[in-house]
């Protein structure tokens, strides 16, 4: 029957998705889940380094970071946070759908997850455009539009102008925006990749590939999606909320 390390699954119940190097579906599922978690560990270190950079510079230049943070649109940031939390809920419900064999429910939940993810990216695009309009894109990332925000004079309440807290310099505000674009940009890239994965999953689900016996790809992709949500759960307070308690001077 079998020789060496290869197992031929000749039992009648061998699932079509069972790979030859696994004993059974459960082992395959656990191996896949472990693999995704190990990848997420590398992602935690990847984003962790940026969070570390944020931490160092925030404590070195607190006034500049507070000023820059207050200039971000808290309403858009909060809405995006809510959007991602709902998308994590719909993603969890999509996994549930495959676990209990509700194919239509799974497809609907995956589509909702994608719509919410796209909404998040749309709002981010609006925010990025606002920064472009106010000349807050750092360095010379946009050739011809260097970092050059208009600083508000005391008493000026124009929202498009930068209001500097005591001790803040424009140079250090630019540092905040480097970190802002690096972190939210990397996060948005992960969202885009996540959307691509969701599209593939939706098509596969619609074609009936998943059910209670085999749904590991949906579950594993869910882990990725929840991870991207968790990154934003930390990004939102650190980038958008840190200086709000100093507001009230505009």
């Amino acid at each position, binding site marked *: 029957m079998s020789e060496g390390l290869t197992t031929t699954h000749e039992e009648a119940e061998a699932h079509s998705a069972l790979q030859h190097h696994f004993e059974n579906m459960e082992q395959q*599922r656990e191996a896949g889940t472990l693999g995704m978690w190990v990848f*997420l560990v590398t992602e935690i270190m990847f984003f962790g380094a940026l969070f570390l950079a944020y*931490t160092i510079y925030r404590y070195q230049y607190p006034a500049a970071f507070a000023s820059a943070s207050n200039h971000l649109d808290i309403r858009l940031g909060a809405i995006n946070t809510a959007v991602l*939390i709902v998308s994590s*809920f719909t993603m969890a419900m999509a996994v549930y759908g495959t676990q209990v064999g509700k194919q239509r429910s799974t497809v609907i939940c995956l589509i909702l997850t994608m719509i919410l993810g796209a909404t998040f990216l749309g709002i981010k695009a609006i925010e990025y455009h606002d920064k472009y309009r106010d000349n807050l894109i750092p360095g010379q990332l946009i050739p011809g539009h260097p970092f050059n925000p208009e600083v508000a004079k005391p008493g000026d309440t124009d929202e498009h102008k930068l209001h500097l807290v005591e001790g803040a310099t424009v140079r250090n505000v630019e540092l905040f925006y480097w970190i802002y674009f690096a972190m939210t940009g990397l996060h948005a890239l992960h969202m885009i990749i996540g959307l691509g994965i969701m599209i593939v999953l939706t098509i596969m689900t619609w074609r009936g590939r998943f059910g209670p016996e085999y749904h590991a790809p949906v579950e594993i992709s869910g882990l990725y999606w*929840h991870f991207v949500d968790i990154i934003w759960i930390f990004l939102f*307070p650190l980038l958008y909320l840190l200086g709000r308690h100093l507001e009230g001077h505009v």
Partner: protein
Amino acid sequence: MSEHIVQPRIYVVIFLALMLGTGLTVFAAFHDFPGPLNAVVALTIAVIKATLVVLYFMHVRYSSRLIWLVIGSALFWLAIMFALTISDYWKRTWLPPL
């Protein structure tokens, strides 16, 4: 199949807790707490929210100890990176420059 199926109502409860946490963190952000407490409050809420997502949405509460070990190792290595880097910056004025 030994996989644990989490009931939708649990997902609903966790979802509501996450929305509550978001509202709370925005609300708290506008209050001036003494010293570094604003950051402590914000990060505490964020850690609780992340923990809920990891335990329930990502099914870690029902996962094997091996998964717990992998997640623990991520936090451990993250802690090394933060501790060594921050301690360097923190003590840069400790010794006079050469």
